[in-house]
């Protein structure tokens, strides 16, 4: 079975220190104002009695690119510059093929992507590819003081991530209208559970899906027309009635 790198998160131990977001920024040179990962929080609800649902407390939820099973960002990329690597299951960006058109940015419901202001390409979490090449864990995972983030190959039954998933119940945080089947699992329960943002294909990409068959249809019709004309020319011989006007005749004379 192929690898599937994933993150298993115990959000109940997250203390919102945001060390993971800083570690990521430093490790990956993430420019000012941009983030590859985040910590969300639930809004306390004072209308319900707290003894029932613990609704008056904050719940912190670390997140990042979820390297989804159904990556809408990949569906939005025209060139395959963003792709799901079959070898490790991670969603990657080829920095030399990406021209920074940003079609994938709104296509990600989680907002995990941004256009890098100086590299002029789309950037996102790559599970700290350089660190992993050295045999180290992603920066956010190593930094977390409460070990809320656990990273590993969930298809390898001996990995920490797989063991955690096996022993505990888990949930995925999704937008109900655009479930991208994220590879980020939250243990037991987490909040907020319903992701408010829906994946949005940019208008030009959506229009392309409709215009594509039309354009290819026109090309195809012309090709068929040309082929019919060619067949007719081979099979039939049509000569002009006025022989002096026809160069076919002139050539013979």
């Amino acid at each position: 079975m192929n690898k599937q790198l994933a993150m298993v998160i115990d959000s109940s131990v997250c203390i919102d220190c945001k060390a993971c977001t800083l570690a990521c920024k430093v490790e990956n040179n993430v420019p000012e104002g941009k983030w590859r990962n985040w910590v969300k929080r639930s809004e306390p609800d004072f209308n319900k009695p707290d003894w029932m649902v613990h609704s008056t407390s904050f719940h912190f939820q670390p997140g990042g690119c979820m390297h989804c099973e159904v990556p809408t960002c990949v569906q939005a990329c025209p060139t395959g510059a963003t792709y799901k690597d079959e070898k490790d299951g991670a969603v990657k960006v080829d920095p030399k093929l990406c021209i920074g058109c940003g079609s994938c940015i709104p296509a990600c419901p989680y907002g995990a992507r941004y256009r890098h202001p100086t590299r002029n390409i789309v950037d996102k979490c790559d599970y700290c590819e350089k660190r992993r090449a050295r045999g180290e864990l992603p920066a956010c995972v190593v930094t977390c003081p409460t070990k809320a983030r656990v990273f590993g190959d969930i298809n390898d039954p001996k990995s920490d991530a797989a063991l955690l998933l096996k022993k505990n119940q888990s949930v995925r945080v999704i937008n109900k209208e655009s479930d991208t089947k994220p590879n980020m699992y939250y243990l037991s329960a987490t909040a907020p559970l319903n992701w408010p943002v829906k994946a949005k294909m940019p208008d030009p990409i959506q229009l392309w899906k409709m215009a594509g068959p039309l354009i290819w249809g026109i090309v195809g019709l012309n090709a068929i027309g040309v082929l019919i004309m060619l067949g007719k020319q081979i099979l039939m011989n049509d000569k002009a009635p006025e022989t002096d006007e026809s160069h076919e005749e002139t050539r013979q004379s």
Partner: protein
Amino acid sequence: MHWFNAGCWIFLFLTGLGLIQNDDLQPFTSWPTILRIVFGGGANLLLAHEIVGITWAGGFLLYGIIRLKSDVIPFFREIFNVDIHRDFLWLITKGIQMTLGYRALGIIAEKFGFSPIIPDQGFYNIGQKIFAIPAVFGGIVIVVSGVTMILSQVGMASTELVQWAILIHFITVGLVFAGLLIHVFMASIAAGEQPAFISMFTGSVPEDYARHHHKLWLDEVKKS
């Protein structure tokens, strides 16, 4: 210039098609995979497409400047020189003759009361002009949208503009390519066009060919 254009077009069309790697947008799914193996990755494919694309646009720009008076202005004057009545009749009669034949043309012309004689044409016939105009302006649209994408790579951060440029690039190339199929057929395969095909290499056509296909032009050449 024609063969420079043709060579660039074939290369750019094939590599451009290979750059579209997306199940929803690409009907020929194995083509991008094959090309990426040939070029050693999508990044090289993109680079090659961009280098040839810039060469193509730059070549035309240079040509346009150097040969403005001798070629470009006369070319534009010629392709926009349309005589509605004569050319419309040509389109009808030539169309019927090519598809249904001379006999059918005679019958249809008699029934609808127009002359079955195909009107004379100038240096280009109206069919050529109908392709030349969108080919030229399509070419400009292709270059502008292509340059927009390159600008994105060097710092123009307007992603929405770039996304539209990609779509416009695709649609324009598709439409011009559809016309190109007919262009190639008419120039190299169509009956009676062999002298025109040979002229693309020699630069001249036999007089009887010119009289038959481009009489108005022949008359002008003879006058001067």
